[in-house]
């Protein structure tokens, strides 16, 4: 019996370990489920548990709120543009680093990772200081620039990993066979990195969509969806609507992350 077990190489986890692992997982996920519950509570002025009643009324109320739609629109536009910028910059940097050895190559990775390795407040206040020093008015673009700066590394990491795996010989073969630079890019390079681009882009989108710390310093009076939620956190006025909005933010960020995970794990299998 015991011999069979070891040869199968599939030992059972100790019970205590399994129980702890499950408890930690529950700790990670139950709070989000609780938001789901509160998005339907009839309670208007407090966070009473158990909820006194359930209703879908607040979804309709949130639907009719102008400030919600404006904030959502701004967040989506910022995330889309910041992701596009990050895709271009991250891919270019990854191509350069994967292709050639040059002086300072290591420091490029370091430079790109710095905006997310340092506390977010550092990036935020640094950009604010620069905006102030340059007398630049706050705008859509000040938010985008901040977001793109910390999104580049996500695309860079994904694309660089792909470049390393595909190697350079296909590109050489294509050029040797007489394909033009553009053809090689279009039919060799792009298909090879497409899923990495997609995965990196989606993660960048999720990162940008709910970023709040850097945005606080670069948005001025504008209100992205996270900033809207944050104002509700410190001075709650519309609790039921906030619950609904929280649920929507979760849905919008979960989908791209799950897709990105699918894309990258399929590749590695």
């Amino acid at each position, binding site marked *: 019996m015991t011999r069979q077990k070891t040869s199968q190489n599939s030992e*059972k*986890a*100790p019970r205590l*370990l399994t129980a702890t*692992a499950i408890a*930690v*997982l529950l700790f*990670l*996920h139950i*709070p*989000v489920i*609780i*938001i789901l519950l*509160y998005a339907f509570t009839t309670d208007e002025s*407090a966070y*009473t*548990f*158990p909820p006194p009643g359930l209703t879908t009324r607040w979804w309709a109320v949130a639907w009719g709120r102008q400030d919600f739609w404006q904030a959502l629109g701004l967040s989506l536009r910022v995330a889309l543009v910041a992701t596009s910028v990050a895709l271009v*910059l991250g891919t*270019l*940097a990854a191509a*350069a680093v994967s*292709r*050639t050895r*040059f002086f300072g190559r290591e420091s*490029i990775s370091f*430079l790109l990772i*710095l905006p997310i*390795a*340092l*506390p977010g*407040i*550092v*990036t935020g*206040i640094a950009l*604010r*200081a*620069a905006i102030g*020093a340059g007398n630049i008015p706050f705008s859509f673009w000040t938010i985008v*620039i901040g977001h793109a*700066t910390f999104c*580049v590394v996500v695309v860079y990491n994904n694309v660089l990993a792909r470049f390393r795996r595909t190697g350079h010989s296909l590109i050489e073969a294509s050029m040797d066979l007489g*394909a*033009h*630079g*553009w*053809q090689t*890019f279009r039919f060799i390079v792009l298909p090879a990195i497409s899923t990495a681009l997609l995965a990196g882009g989606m*993660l960048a989108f*999720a990162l940008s969509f*709910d970023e709040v710390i850097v945005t606080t310093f670069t948005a001025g009076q504008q209100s992205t969806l*996270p900033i809207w*939620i944050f104002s509700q*956190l410190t001075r709650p006025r519309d609790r039921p609507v906030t619950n609904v909005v929280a649920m929507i*933010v979760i849905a919008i*960020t*979960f989908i791209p*992350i*799950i897709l990105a*995970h699918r894309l990258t794990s399929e590749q590695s299998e």
Partner: protein
Amino acid sequence: MSSRADTFSSPPQDKQKSWFERLLTTIYLRPWLMLVLLLILPLGWMLFIYLGSLATLLVNSFYHLDDFTGLVDRSRLTLATYASLFTPANLDIVLRTASMALAVTLACALLAFPLSYYIARFASPRWRGFLYLAVLLPLWSSYLVRVYAWKLILAKEGILTWFINQIGLAGVLEAWLRIPTVGGSSLSVSPTGMFIVFVYVWLPYMVLPIIAALERVPKSLQEASSDLGARPLLTFRHILLPLALPGIVAGSIFTFSLTLGDFIIPLTLGNSKFFIGQAVLSHVGTSGNLPLAAAFTMVPIVIMVLYLLVARRMGAFEAM
């Protein structure tokens, strides 16, 4: 597929390459030119916008806010602003933030280890993918919303107090909240509440590097240890823990750094006792004292640089 093949086998085109295609080939054949063209945008962006901003921040920290006029004096560089960091009130803020970061890091390591160990060693491949996603999802998404969730949970009328009442421990909670350094009027405005939420939001950052480190521990090493008569605890202490340490240190870089720089959680769940992030925010916002805010920001940077130097010596960078 056929159209793809066609593009490659159409020699007539070769004779009449457009200027664009010839340009691309020219670039391709000159590696240094290619490199410059690839790097000019991303490097330019990071150097000009990001490092430029950081430099501006650094310069600002050497300015000083004139107490009489209430304006920032940009005419000379001084260390006066840094000196004002060392007032008891400000030192208190730094110390409070650093001890919270330390406590959060330790708690994260304690909670992350069993989960990581389970995922790395015992989960079947199918489960592994699923569990991995279960850790990734909270890492990438909705940081703010997940903080908000705890506002609901920790509220006086919320689920946690309700649960504690149900199991008859209301007295214990009250006694705990009466302790001055950790308590408050309710869990949702207390250092204890902040601690729980910090641990919750940064936990995934600790789990992933520990998984990575544990996956590299050969199973035979543990088996050898137990074959030689070591009890599980001894094997853990002398085999597993030392080998997982780089992963723990790598994770702690994130948990420590993120706690140092956060102002959302202190603003949402804290009381009037400031954390570094709050101090920075208030100096930028209401008092318009950008130099002091800039100097304050240097504190987490310096702490993190020192931390990273130590972490590198412990091999944390290989575990990231």
